[in-house]
Each structure stands twice: as C-alpha cells, then as structure tokens.
C-alpha cells in the first residue's frame, strides 16, 4: 500500500513539471492558434539561463529563476513580434515550420554558447534532502515542484477567469478580427499571451535545473509529452492541461512500477484512448 502511495506521489511531482510546460503550450494554441514547436526550446533556454545565473554567476536560486523568465520573455517577444506575427494569415503548418526552424537554431545556439557538454548547477540547499512519506524518503525538491505547480495553476485560473484581461484574451481567441474591430489591441494581446506562455516554459526548465541537467536537446524530449498532454486535456484548455498532466504523470509512474517494459508507449496509448473516446480531448469547448 505504501509503495502504491509513494509511487503515486512521485507521479504527481512528475505531473507538475509536465503541467508547467503544457500550460504555456495550451494557452498559446488557444489564443494564437499557433502550435509552438519551439516551446520545448524555450524550456531549454530557461534551464540554461537558470544554470548561468545560479550555477555560474552564483545569484540566489529564486532570483535566477526570475531572471531566466525575463530572458525567455524577451526571446518570446522577439519570436512573436519579429516572426510569427507575419504568418498568422497562413496555414497552421507554416507556423509549425517556422517554430521548427527556431528549434533547430536554438538547439545549436546553446551548444555554441555553452558547449556540447551538459551543464549542472549545484542543488540549492533548501531543496536538498528528503523527508519521510509512506515510510520512504520523499525528496523536498519533488514536494517543492508539487507546490509550485498548484500555485501556478491557481494563478492562471484566476488570470483567465477572473480578470478582464482574461476575458479579452478569450474573445480574441475566438475571433481575432472582430476583437480587433471592437477595439481590442490584438497584436498586444498576442504578444502578452505568447510571452506568458514562453515564461511558463522557461519556468519549467529553470525549476528543473537543480536536479536535471541543461543540455542541448532536452527541449525535444519535453515537447512531445507536452503536446500529448494538451491534446488529452483538450487544446486551449488550462483545466485540461492540468488534468492531462496528472493523468500522464501518475499513470506513467505506475507504469514504471507495474509494466516497466512499456515505458515507451505509455503516453501515446493514453492519448489514443482519450481521443478515441473523446475526440476533442477531455475539456474542449463544444462548438
């Protein structure tokens, strides 16, 4: 029983790091209609920046995370204002292609800047160690991830449901031309949404640095998982992304425990089952 509980909790912490990255992806898709392939790369940039500020320059961890969010925000702004903006009128596939171009560039760019060897900052003291849960040591770090994930969830929910900005964003999401015509500064909405998404991706990457590595290619590892989760939850739905993360996180933790050989399949099987039963994902709006 303890084993089950412990593994489930591990699954929840997995889910929270998945949630951070899929939240941004789903917001950007929901509003801009863009499938941002480079979302994983922003995750990677977040990790590298956190490494640089925290591991290399020795800034406090919290500050380093904030700084890396700022860098991601700037990068997101450049991507959106400089490039994506000019492609909104084209088929989705062209945006996909463009963001794929970003992936290629950013992957190599970090290699040129930081070298091919992965980077590892030390573990911040307050995140080190474990405390007993179900009779086994459960890392403080994973507990921290769970807390952050829940906080981000509440924050985003409030942002989109309770603020006027959220309503403006939802209107823009459904008909950008008309929103523009009633006076919504749509380009600005797009930029802010893209920047928020980019920062969420970077947050996922930055928070991961203490226990993972920053390496070229870690973005590619995340992005497909994030796609799967957003689709399971229903594209554009934050509630869906949260639920999807929990489903994928927890089921894969149990999968590792009970069916270790199928690791590779898990998330795809989950997604297929969900889509076959609910073609629009769990929480999609029915239009």
């Amino acid at each position: 029983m303890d084993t089950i509980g412990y593994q489930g909790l591990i699954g929840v912490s997995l889910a929270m790091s998945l949630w951070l990255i899929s939240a941004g992806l789903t917001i950007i898709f929901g509003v801009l209609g863009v499938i941002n392939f480079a979302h994983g790369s922003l995750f990677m940039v977040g990790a590298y920046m956190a490494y640089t500020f925290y591991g290399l320059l020795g800034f406090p961890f919290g500050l380093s995370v904030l700084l890396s969010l700022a860098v991601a925000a700037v990068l997101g702004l450049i991507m959106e204002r400089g490039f994506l903006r000019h492609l909104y009128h084209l088929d989705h596939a062209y945006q996909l292609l463009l963001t794929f171009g970003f992936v290629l560039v950013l992957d190599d760019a970090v290699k040129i800047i930081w070298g091919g060897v992965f980077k590892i900052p030390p573990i911040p003291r307050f995140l080190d160690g474990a405390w007993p849960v179900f009779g086994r040591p459960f890392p403080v770090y994973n507990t921290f991830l769970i807390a952050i994930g829940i906080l981000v969830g509440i924050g985003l929910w409030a942002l989109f449901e309770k603020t006027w900005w959220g309503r403006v964003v939802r209107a823009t999401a459904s008909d950008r031309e008309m929103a523009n015509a009633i006076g919504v500064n749509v380009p600005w909405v797009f930029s802010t949404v893209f920047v928020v998404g980019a920062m969420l991706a970077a947050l996922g990457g930055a928070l991961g640095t203490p226990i993972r590595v920053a390496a070229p290619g870690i973005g590619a590892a995340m992005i497909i998982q994030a796609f799967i989760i957003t689709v399971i939850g229903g594209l554009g739905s934050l509630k869906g992304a949260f639920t999807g993360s929990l489903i994928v996180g927890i089921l894969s933790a149990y999968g590792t425990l009970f069916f270790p050989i199928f690791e590779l399949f898990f998330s795809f099987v989950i997604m297929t089952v969900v889509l076959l039963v609910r073609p629009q994902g769990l929480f999609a709006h029915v239009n």
Partner: protein
Amino acid sequence: MTYLRHAHIMSGPLTAALVAALIVLPLLAGNYLTYLTIQILILSLFALGFNLLFGYTGLLSFGQAGFYAVGAYICAKILLVQPSLLLGVLGGTVAAAVVAVLLGALSVRHTRIYFSMLTLAFGMMIYSVAWKWRDVTGGDDGLVGIPRAPLKILGIASISLSTIEHYYYFVLVVVLLGVFFMYRLVNSPFGLSLQAIRDGETRAPFVGMSVTTHRLLAFTIAGLYAGLAGALLPPLENTVTPVMAHWTTSADPILATLLGGIYVFSGPIVGGALFIIIKDLIVRVTVHWSIVLGTVVIILVMGFRGGVAGIVAGMVARPRAAPAPAVASK
C-alpha cells in the same frame, strides 16, 4: 484571404527534359550524387503521398513515418528470406496500405490537430513496436544485412541491381510511375472530392459524398505511397532501424512539402529535392548544420510563404482554367 489553387509549374517539355536528365544522371555523376538522387526520389514519393492527405484533403499527418517504416521492415523481412526485389517492395507497400486502412479507420473521423496527434501516436506506437519487439525487428539496432536482391520478373528474367546505378534506375521507374498515378489521381473526380472535403467538411455530405470513406481512401493511398517509399530504402541502405518510424522522420515529408508548396502538385517533389540538397551542402561546410538549416528554414518560411514552387507558380500566374465550356454562354 487569397485562394491559391492547386497550380502546375511543370509544362510538358520541362517535364520531359527533367526525366531525360534523370535518365542520364548516373552516366555523368559520381556514385554519391546518384545515391543522393535516389534519396531525393524516395523522399519525393514519400512527400507526394503525404501531400495527398495534407494539401488535398486537409489532414496533417504526423505519423506517416509509421507506414514508411512498415514498408521498409516488411520489405526487409521478405528480402532476408526470399531475395526477390519485386516481392519485397510489393510486400512492403501492401503491408503499409493494410496498416493504413486499419489505423485510418480509427483516425479519419478526427480532424485538424486531433487527427495530427492521433497519427503521431500511431506512428510512435509503430516506432515503439519496432524498438521493443526485438525478436522480429532487431530492436533498436534494427535489421541488418538486407540484400539488394535482383529484380526477378515472373521467373523469366532476373536483373542484378547490386550496383548503385542499377538500383537507381529501378527506383527511378517506380517513382516516375508513382508520380504519374498521383498526377492522374489528383485531377480525377476523386481528387476533386478530396479538395472539396478539405474546404468544406460540413458541406461535403450535402453534395452526396461520404467524408469518411473519401478520407479513409486518401489515408490509405498516402500510407501506400509512404510504404512504397519506405520499401525502396532497405535494399539501398541494407538496414532498417526504428528511427524510420520516429516522428522526426515524419517531419521530413512535412518540411519538404511546406518548403515546396502545399498547393502545387510538384511542391513536394521540389521541396524534397531542396531539402536534401540544402542539407547536404550545409553538412559539407559545418557541423553546426542545425543552426544554418534552421536559419534557412526561417528565411524560406518568411520569404516564400506559399512554398518555393508555390511562388514560382504564382509568378507563372497561369490560373488553371476550368475545363473548356461545354455549352455556350447565354
């Protein structure tokens, strides 16, 4: 919004000249160039099938590599047992089409990104099977030592294809036939129906067609083309590995098609050639191919928004005329 039609940039004489050039190519070019051209031919075929789904039917599949791999693995398996090229290639193609029918039946009711993700999942499941079912597929190391078997025609003749040049001609013939059939297909009533479905999914049933049946057929044909392209690979490389089924391989025809242009018949072919040539040239200069290729992709997307062939088609600006009027205007 502008409405780009499926345009043509290849005139008859131009096509003839291109085919002639392809025929003499191995006589003039070195081994490597011939090899590279085979790769271009295979990717073109792969992308052409993909674009039947994407450009014509409006379904963006992220899982075409799955069928590509099925074609390759089955062809490889056959060749390892029975070294007959025709049998291998046919077997691979048919197997891919069969798998496509099965998976298509589950996917074609979905559209847009949901379809894309479902096909991604199926492709990755095929990948996982190739990776995990080691007794049959050789696991991540794949199947090796696949012979470039001779072309046996009904036991009457047997042509050795062991050299790259000979194999090149075989591939050329297959690909030209593939292009020809696809050309006829997209201009047939079936091709027209697909485009109608792409443009007005809800409207299509009311002109009397079954959207699902048409999509399933398109999916199967695309799978068949992917399988055929895949089946041409093992005899060339002597190996098949699971990466063939990975989503990154599915990205190749997508990139090629988008670079070339979705709404131009020859877009996938132009894009396929461009994609392979650009990358080959970059790799010669730098190991940082990724940043250069990425930049090229970004420039092409920003600059050639309708795809390279699309832009050319736009310049040629010959809006395709409807069939000649059968009755005089009143």
